[in-house]
């Protein structure tokens, strides 16, 4: 599913922000991504979302060797990856409905199916009455729910989330974790970056601990 062999990443001529990354994620696995601010969590997520390519090493995602793949091979791969960004990254000129519909339309789904699926998804995240609202008209929590809906609506094979509960109340956070667990049960590989130790304790799973751009010794452990 996901495999990193001696992967390192640097931006331009700057220092390496990730080094000697070696791990693999089996299909249908769940990982917490933990570490202090600046440890490299966001950079690792950027690698896994194909926002950057590794500077060194071999990165394989869903059978595609990303470090050597041509650009034209990546859009199809990106459509199989769902991402919840910390800053939501919604399109401000589109309604909540159209933001959530983006992955389905890019995948070429029929418009009738798009309408039904998006309406259902927005109902599930509690935004049924806000489908025509634009991001500027939504609260931070509502925007985050739109971002989550957009990330999961295409049933991605790999779901990456950066602090997905940061703007959610406890009830919404619990519902989100329930959704992630359900997707994981259905075969989606899930990686969630968080600072929220309480959340990790409530939902025990294996974790990747990052420190100074490296995986910490014996970082993959079962949290309980």
């Amino acid at each position, binding site marked *: 599913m996901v495999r990193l062999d001696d992967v390192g990443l640097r931006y331009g001529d700057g220092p390496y922000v990730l080094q000697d990354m070696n791990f693999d994620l089996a299909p249908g696995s769940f990982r917490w991504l933990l570490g202090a601010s600046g440890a490299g969590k966001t950079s690792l997520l950027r690698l896994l*979302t*194909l*926002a*950057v*390519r590794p500077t060194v090493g071999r990165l394989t995602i869903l059978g595609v060797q990303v470090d050597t793949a041509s*650009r*034209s091979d*990546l*859009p*199809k*791969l*990106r*459509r199989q990856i769902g*991402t919840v960004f910390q800053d939501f*990254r*919604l*399109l*401000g*000129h*589109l309604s909540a409905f*159209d933001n959530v*519909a*983006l*992955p389905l*339309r*890019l*995948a*070429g789904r029929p*418009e009738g199916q798009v309408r039904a699926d998006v309406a259902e998804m927005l109902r599930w995240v509690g935004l049924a009455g806000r489908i025509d609202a634009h991001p500027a008209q939504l609260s931070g929590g509502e925007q985050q729910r739109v971002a989550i809906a*957009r990330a999961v609506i295409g049933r991605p094979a790999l779901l990456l989330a950066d602090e997905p509960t940061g703007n959610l109340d406890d009830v919404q956070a619990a519902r989100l974790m329930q959704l992630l667990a359900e997707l994981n049960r259905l075969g989606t590989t899930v990686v969630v970056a968080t600072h929220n130790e309480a959340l990790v304790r409530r939902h025990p799973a294996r974790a990747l601990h990052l420190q100074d751009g490296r995986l910490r010794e014996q970082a993959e452990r079962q949290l309980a």
Partner: protein
Amino acid sequence: MATLRPRGSDDLGLRRALSDRLLPLLVAAMVFLAALALAGVIAAASLARHWQGGAAALLTIQVPQPDRPIAAGQSRAAAVAALLESTPSVAARRLSAAELAGILRPWLGTDAGPLALDLPAVFEVRLLGGADPRRLGSRLAAAAPGTLVEQNSVWFDRLGVLARSLQASALLALLVVALVATAVVAVATRAGLAARRDAIEIVYGLGATDRLIAGHFARRVTLLVFTGALLGLSLAIPMLLGLATITAPFTPDLPTPAPFMNGTLLPALPPLLWALLPVLPVTASLIGWLTAQATVRFWLAGLP
């Protein structure tokens, strides 16, 4: 096939990023200039044809001592006239004494009396298709030795160079206009990319292809360019009609334009120009589409 929202939707927010004012106005100015340059190309070609059919086909033949008899008691002038008359591919006319006097008037004045000089007979000869002036000159020299054949080819060559220069200048102007239009579209597209960078990166990250994103830009740019081109053309046509009216005396091969009086505009401009003017908005749109596609794809190539 992957799309964003249904066709016609502003998925990337390009209506704000690519203004519907500045680009169409700049393109309108470009198309206006292109229409004038195109008219210049066609007018220069028309002039070249006119000169070629006129000056180049004219010969002036001088027969010294025209009344001196030659064999069979025929005068030299009569022998030349008979030869010219019997040659099928020429049309000749002998200038009258009054016409000769008119030609000499700038040098001799109006009060000059009868001259003691024996003036040559002068024939104005127009070569019809297939006539060879050198061969004709040899035959004339044989019929009346000393006959001078003066071809206007020197003037024609100069006029030809002038006409070709005019055409080249007009074509160069068209090329410059096309290049400037390309640059204008490229700059506008780059500005649109900069303004919508975040939106493009989001859609790109969700799996949009270069083709999809470039297509959105190209459609928006093409619409704006076509709108501007129509505006420029609608401004250029009245200008061209006005110029055609002013230059009518110098374009005898065109119908006499009285476009604003008899109610029909078509005869006022050459048919070729009428045929090519509608091509300008199409060409401008094609330039816009290609430039936007190339600019966006080049920009996207910088993304991973």
